[in-house]
């Protein structure tokens, strides 16, 4: 099923950041395994929601897919081309076809550049619409597309509210007419009522422009609302993926179950009766990932094979739903004891 028109695909993707000791010699003493063996397909025209808690590597994964961070292992394919080994020119072409919307609209716009300068940057970089008039028209078109008055083009970011800034950020990401857009916590720093405006805008744009969206967020309700499919990340690994309705209603991985059960909903009667699965402890450090199943230190169902076999994604539940959990049958790579790195219990 993964073969039908996949736009972006990751295979065994790894991003490890070396931990260096201080001093002149800077020996590498370990690695933060931010992304640690991710397999993921993003289909053309879909919105894939990527959820997970802070530190699970979801942002790093988004950056690695766009090659904004260089993967240390595995591969990323964009529209059939392996982007892990692209030279500078080819990389620039990729930048035109894949854009990013960032979390903090106050930080992602250069305070010293007008909206026009910011939005026209991709046009300048890629030599698009090079005539002065043509470029002006394109900028006006982009601003209108995101619901801003083109008359504000010559204003500076500090004159705008958070929601409007985020619209400018979206206009910038769309300037190069990308096929693929990564929204990295794009609504996290906005007020509730403004979040809804931006969510609606993204959905409308996606339909209108036929975009493929990777919507990264810790907000499960928002992800559930915008996504066709949802991928859940835990400690650098995608542990469950599937159609949004299936993952949202009938999660198969204990972590997804806990995550969903922890999301408070604004209905007092539901909240009072709801069973919450409260997890023990904290997420282990990505510098000391537990052996085998990485969720086993907090999992209420952990049993014998969990420390010994690194679970692989296997089909469970609804069609197209995959989960990495031994409860559905022990599938995966056995851990060699010598490599085991069991973190001290916190």
């Amino acid at each position: 099923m993964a073969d039908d028109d996949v736009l972006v695909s990751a295979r065994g993707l790894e991003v490890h950041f070396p931990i260096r000791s201080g001093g002149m010699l800077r020996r590498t003493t370990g690695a933060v395994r931010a992304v640690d063996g991710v397999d993921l397909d993003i289909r053309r025209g879909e919105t894939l929601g990527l959820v997970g808690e802070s530190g699970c590597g979801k942002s790093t994964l988004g950056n690695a897919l766009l090659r904004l961070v260089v993967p240390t292992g595995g591969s990323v394919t964009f529209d059939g081309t392996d982007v892990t080994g692209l030279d500078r020119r080819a990389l620039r072409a990729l930048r035109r076809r894949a854009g990013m919307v960032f979390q903090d609209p106050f930080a992602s716009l250069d305070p010293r550049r007008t909206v026009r300068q910011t939005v026209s940057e991709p046009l300048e970089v890629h030599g698009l619409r090079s005539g002065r008039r043509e470029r002006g028209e394109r900028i006006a078109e982009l601003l209108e597309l995101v619901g801003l008055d083109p008359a504000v083009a010559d204003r500076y970011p500090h004159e705008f509210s958070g929601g409007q800034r985020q619209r400018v950020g979206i206009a910038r990401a769309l300037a190069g007419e990308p096929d693929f857009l990564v929204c990295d916590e794009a609504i996290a720093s906005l007020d509730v009522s403004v979040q809804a405006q931006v969510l609606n805008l993204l959905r409308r744009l996606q339909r209108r422009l036929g975009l493929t969206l990777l919507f990264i967020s810790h907000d499960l309700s928002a992800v559930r609302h915008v996504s066709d499919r949802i991928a859940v990340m835990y400690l650098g690994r995608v542990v469950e993926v599937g159609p949004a309705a299936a993952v949202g209603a009938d999660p198969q991985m204990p972590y997804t179950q806990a995550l969903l059960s922890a999301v408070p909903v604004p209905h007092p009667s539901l909240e009072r009766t709801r069973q919450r699965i409260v997890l023990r402890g904290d997420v282990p450090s990505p510098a000391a990932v537990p052996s085998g199943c990485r969720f086993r230190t907090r999992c209420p169902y952990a049993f014998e094979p969990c420390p010994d076999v690194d679970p692989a994604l296997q089909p469970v539940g609804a069609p197209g739903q995959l989960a990495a959990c031994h409860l559905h049958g022990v599938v995966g790579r056995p851990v060699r004891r010598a490599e085991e790195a069991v973190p001290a219990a916190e």
Partner: protein
Amino acid sequence: MSAPLLEVEDLRVRLRTPRGTAHVVNGLGYTVGRGETVAVVGESGSGKSVSVLALLGLLPARVATVTGAARLDGEDLLTMSPERLREVRGPGVGMVFQDPMTSLNPVLTIGRQLVEGIRAHGEVSKAEARERAAGLLAEVGLPDPQRALDRYPHELSGGMRQRVVIAIALSNNPSLLIADEATTALDVTVQAQILDLVAELQAEHGTGVIWITHDLGVVAGIADRVLVMYGGRCVEDGTVDDVLERPAHPYTRGLLGALPDLATSDDGDLATVPGVPPAPTDLPPGCVFWPRCPVRSDPRCATEQPPLAIVPTSHRDIGGGGLVHRAATWCEEGSRG
């Protein structure tokens, strides 16, 4: 009915800013009973945080003017001498802010910070204070509290740090706990832990809690009563069921409609409240919500601020003092639709 723990009356806060005088809080009144949780809900700029900072005298006097009354156990916090206020703050009121890193001193161990707080408000020996500190850390669910005492804030995770801040806030058994977006920076699974923890401690000690948040889901889970703030005013208050299930003010309804719902999956657009909240330096005349209101129709909307009035179609008889459902809107019929 016994006197409430905290009674806020006609609280007003003005701040001098480069853009002129900001009317941040404009006549806020509410009560918090013992063991009760009152949620203050609002978007950024609604004045929800400033209103509690003002109660505790934590606003810079140079730029802030605070009027009104706030009686904690009958004693007015706003007219109190700074010395008395400092005495009250520890044992009377505990505070937990959004970012635990800002409330913890990075160069002191957790133990030192806890012990200092305990000893500042009571005649306790160092060893005794340390014992109590360890007990508090155990109470807030920190594993291995004895070892945690000798750790520095950066050695703990965000959730653990927030537990420490709660431990410090509770170290003197305050009668009132104020949590300002205390779980906003935390992951949902950790948030669930913290919410459970506060509920437990509250049940045990009978603490009154003011929970400031923008997350209506959190409110639904923990609050007894809700106060919705907009433009520095309370636009709606009542029991959590009344306000969240039967919102009477168009703004509350807009907020609830703007939330994507995890339980249902409709593919339609989310309802939005058009525009952005007003700047406190430039509040509209009349109803503060009027410029964004989808159901404005009354001629008074643009000119006259609607009073906080009892919602006439309340589904049941109006109970005792704190249980009234009130909303500040002219659009009574529209709000039903």
